[in-house]
């Protein structure tokens, strides 16, 4: 069988961020217990940014690195999102246009909450493995923003706060998938799935999120357990402690990942708290590198965690990474793949961390103004002209695609250099 996986990968973490601890304090919701949530910063989308711009800006550097011949081999474009801008027209139509991809290409959008990115990756890998079009590549782009208003009564809002506003970020993760998986070679057939119907978190109306945070946490844990059990049933000798050098988790917030990892080790290996802490530091922490700076980017978060590991972990030889993806509603998958020193060298060339450093730090008044201005571009906005001077300081730091205007529902973008 041919190798398959991620040939190239990039993360676009936006142009502005807010310090979540500062946000918590400002909202009067900071407490002694806040630290164990492990929240740090989160990217905030400007009004002139939307899931299309995050997608294009994540993918552009990958395509710039391809020759025309290679670019023409992209026959499948999948955008993975729960921040769709139209019930019919997928993000991929705009993304395809602004990336200048060839017209002989399948394109569509994929949705299942935070599982969408892993699902897109696996669908792309299976396209390559099928060899129905030998040499063809796929471009999978996860893109989500959190321009949300909470639904719920006042009492529940406070309880769910730790799950909603401070953790919801914005970002794009682009992956070129093919038979030369320099970045991450998928272990073929090594997947465990677990899915059932549960009403934990969802986006039932545009620009809003509803949910029960405790139900979602527990459902995540339930899925982590059973998805890994399914993985073990398919992969002989698989062991949570021994098989994986690193572990990448879908990361709504760091504290949840730490708790999930702790729960898995207690159940499977009966480690002591000190041993669990050590294992977390050694195998999981690197995956939080970018997640704690960008926040929860839904379908792309697991891939963001994977990028963090590849960028920062000690990879002096091939290493196996176990990956767990969970999407509310729900669906989950535990899969694995191998990264090499070459993976790290190539990903580090994209300088993901350095680009995150260029983001503008928003003050609280700026953040609140941004939330207010975001209403101008809410779902279904028909005619809007974006103010090019709004948050110009943030935009000037990052060349890329920005939303210029919406005319009769049609979105028009421009490149800022």
């Amino acid at each position, binding site marked *: 069988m041919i190798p398959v996986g991620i040939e190239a990968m990039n993360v676009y973490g936006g142009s502005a961020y807010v310090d979540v601890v500062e946000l918590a304090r400002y909202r009067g919701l900071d*407490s002694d*217990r*806040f630290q*164990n*949530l492990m929240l740090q910063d989160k990217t905030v989308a400007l009004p002139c940014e939307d899931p299309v711009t995050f997608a294009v800006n994540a993918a552009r550097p990958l395509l710039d690195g391809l020759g025309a011949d290679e670019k023409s081999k992209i026959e499948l474009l999948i955008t993975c999102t729960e921040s769709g801008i139209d019930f019919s027209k997928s993000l991929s139509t705009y993304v395809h246009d602004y990336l200048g991809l060839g017209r002989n290409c399948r394109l569509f959008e994929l949705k299942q909450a935070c599982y969408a990115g892993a699902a897109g990756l696996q669908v792309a890998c299976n396209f390559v493995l099928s060899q129905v079009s030998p040499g063809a590549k796929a471009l999978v782009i996860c893109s989500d923003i959190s321009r949300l208003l909470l639904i719920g009564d006042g009492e529940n809002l406070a*309880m769910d706060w*730790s*799950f909603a506003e401070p953790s919801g970020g914005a970002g794009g993760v682009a992956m070129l998938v093919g038979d030369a998986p320099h970045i991450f070679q998928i272990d073929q057939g090594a997947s465990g799935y677990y899915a059932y119907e*549960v009403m*934990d978190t969802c986006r039932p109306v545009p620009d809003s999120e509803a949910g*029960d*945070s*405790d*139900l979602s*946490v*527990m*459902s995540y*844990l*339930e899925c982590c*357990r059973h998805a890994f059990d399914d993985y073990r049933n398919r992969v002989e000798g698989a062991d949570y402690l021994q098989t994986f050098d690193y572990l990448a988790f879908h990361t709504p917030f760091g*504290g*949840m990942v*730490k*708790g999930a990892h*702790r*729960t898995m080790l*207690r*159940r499977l290996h009966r480690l002591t708290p000190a041993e669990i802490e050590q294992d977390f530091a050694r195998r999981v922490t690197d995956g939080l590198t970018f997640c704690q700076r960008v926040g929860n980017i839904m379908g792309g978060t697991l891939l963001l965690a994977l990028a963090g590991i590849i960028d920062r972990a000690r990879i002096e030889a091939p290493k196996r990474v176990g990956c767990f993806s969970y999407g509310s509603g729900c669906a989950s998958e535990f899969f694995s793949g191998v990264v090499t020193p070459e993976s790290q060298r190539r990903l580090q060339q994209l300088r993901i961390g350095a680009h995150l450093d260029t983001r503008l730090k928003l003050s609280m008044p700026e953040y609140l103004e941004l939330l207010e201005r975001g209403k101008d571009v809410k779902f279904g906005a028909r005619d809007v002209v974006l103010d090019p001077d709004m948050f110009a300081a943030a935009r000037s730091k990052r060349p890329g695609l920005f939303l210029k205007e919406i005319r009769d529902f049609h979105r028009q973008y421009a490149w800022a250099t």
Partner: protein
Amino acid sequence: MDKELIWADLQRHIVEVLPFLDGSRIDPSARLADLGANSVDRMEIVTLTAESLNSLTPLHELATADRLADLVELLHRKTSVTLKC
């Protein structure tokens, strides 16, 4: 398993995760959030208790418990029995 034993186990884990609490004064009609537990604390308390009781209830079903007494009830329904010789 006796509900009193389940309640005692739950109280023990609440105090383990929230050591500032006086275990003897936890009201069964309280919610974990009322005691000062955030999402991670609530996850820890419920999972630790479920594990020590060998609970067979899926974790997401335990999340439907509103008050501590409701959690005890859910845990009571499906705990496995350890046979002792």
